[in-house]
C-alpha cells in the first residue's frame, strides 16, 4: 500500500509556551494527510494542526477518558491505543534494545490498565503513560548506568570551510513556512524518511519535544538521560531534519 489517504483528525494538545511562541510567527493551517507507505515500521506520521486547549479542559477531558477506560469502553480504548501505541514504541526503543521494545510496550499497556484507577491528572495522560513505558523498559534493562550514543551530527565537515564560515551561501527556501513545507507531498515523504532514519535516541527526543511538545525535564525522566545529553540529541536530530529539507530544497537526492 503506497499512497496518501486523506483523513480528518485533529489532535488536542496542550501547546507548550515554546510552541506557542513559534506559532505566533506563522498562521495555523489544518493539514490532514495520512501517510501510509510500503515499508514496515511501527507507525506512520499523521500531519495535523495542533489545536490548542486549556489546562482545565485537558484535565476534565482526560479524567472522563480514564473513567471510560476503567469502565471498559471500547471506543475509549481505541482512542488511547491509536494515540499512544506508536509513540510508546519509539520511546521504548529510545531506552532499550529494539528486539524487546515491542514486548515492553505490551507489558506497559497492561501496567497502564492496572494503574488507571490511580491516575490523578497531575501530569497529562500522555506523560503518565510514557512514564509507565519508561519504568517498564528500565526494569528490563540489565545495566543501570547509561548514556545514549548521541549519533553523528550532520556533515559538519562539508557544511563549513576551515575558517568556520558556511562553505556555500545559505539562500532562502522556496517552501519558507511550515504550511508551505507540508504542502509538498514529496517533502512530507522526505521528512518521514528523515524521522525514520534517525538513531533511536535522537528520534525519541525529537518526537517527545518537537512533535509531542513535552518539557525537557519530563523527557529526561522518561528517557532516563541527562538534560545536556537530551539537548545534544535534540539538536542533532533537528539538524538532520533541517538538512533533509535543505537537500530537498536544493533538488539534491537523499
Amino acid at each position, binding site marked *: 500500500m503506497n499512497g496518501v489517504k486523506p483523513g480528518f483528525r485533529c489532535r488536542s494538545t496542550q501547546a507548550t509556551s515554546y510552541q506557542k511562541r513559534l506559532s505566533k510567527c506563522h498562521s495555523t493551517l489544518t493539514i490532514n494527510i495520512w501517510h501510509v507507505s510500503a515499508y514496515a515500521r511501527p507507525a506512520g506520521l499523521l500531519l495535523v494542526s495542533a489545536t490548542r486547549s486549556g489546562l482545565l479542559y485537558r484535565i476534565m477531558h482526560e479524567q472522563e477518558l480514564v473513567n471510560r477506560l476503567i469502565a471498559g469502553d471500547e471506543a475509549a480504548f481505541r482512542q488511547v*491505543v491509536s494515540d499512544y501505541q506508536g509513540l510508546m514504541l519509539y520511546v521504548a526503543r529510545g531506552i532499550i534494545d529494539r528486539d524487546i521494545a515491542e514486548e515492553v510496550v505490551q507489558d506497559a499497556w497492561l501496567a497502564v490498565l492496572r494503574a488507571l484507577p490511580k491516575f490523578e491528572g497531575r501530569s497529562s495522560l500522555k506523560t503518565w503513560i510514557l512514564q509507565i513505558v519508561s519504568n517498564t523498559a528500565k526494569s528490563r534493562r540489565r545495566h543501570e548506568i547509561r548514556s545514549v550514543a548521541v549519533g553523528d551530527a550532520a556533515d559538519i565537515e562539508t557544511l563549513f570551510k576551515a575558517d568556520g564560515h558556511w562553505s556555500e551561501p545559505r539562500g532562502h527556501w522556496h517552501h519558507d*513556512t511550515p504550511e508551505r513545507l507540508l504542502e509538498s507531498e514529496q517533502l512530507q515523504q522526505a521528512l518521514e524518511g528523515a524521522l525514520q532514519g534517525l538513531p533511536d535516541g535522537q528520534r525519541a527526543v525529537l518526537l517527545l519535544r518537537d*512533535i509531542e511538545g513535552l518539557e525537557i525535564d519530563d523527557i529526561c525522566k522518561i528517557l532516563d538521560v541527562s538534560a545536556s545529553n537530551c539537548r545534544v540529541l535534540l*539538536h542533532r536530530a533537528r539538524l538532520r531534519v533541517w538538512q533533509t*529539507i*535543505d537537500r530537498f530544497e536544493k533538488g539534491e537526492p537523499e
Partner: protein
Amino acid sequence: MFKCRDIHAHASDYLERRLSRWDRIKFRLHLFICVDCRNFIRQLATTIAALARVKQATDPKQLDDQLARLLKAHRADQNHKQ
C-alpha cells in the same frame, strides 16, 4: 566572536533561550552581520514549527491487535474481581 559553525552548533539553545546572556549577545551580533546565518536560523525555526504539525499515527493492524489484547486483559481483570 562566533563563527557560522558556532551558530549552527548552538542554534537550538538560542531558539529556546538557553544561552547565557553574553553568548546570546555574541550570537545576535553574528546574526546581525551574517545573512547566511539569519537564513539558517529561519530555516531551523521553520523546520521545528513544521515538526509541531506532525503526528504519530499508529499502524491500523497494530492498533487492532493491541486493542484486542487490551480488551481481553480488561475483561479478564473484571472477571477476576467478581
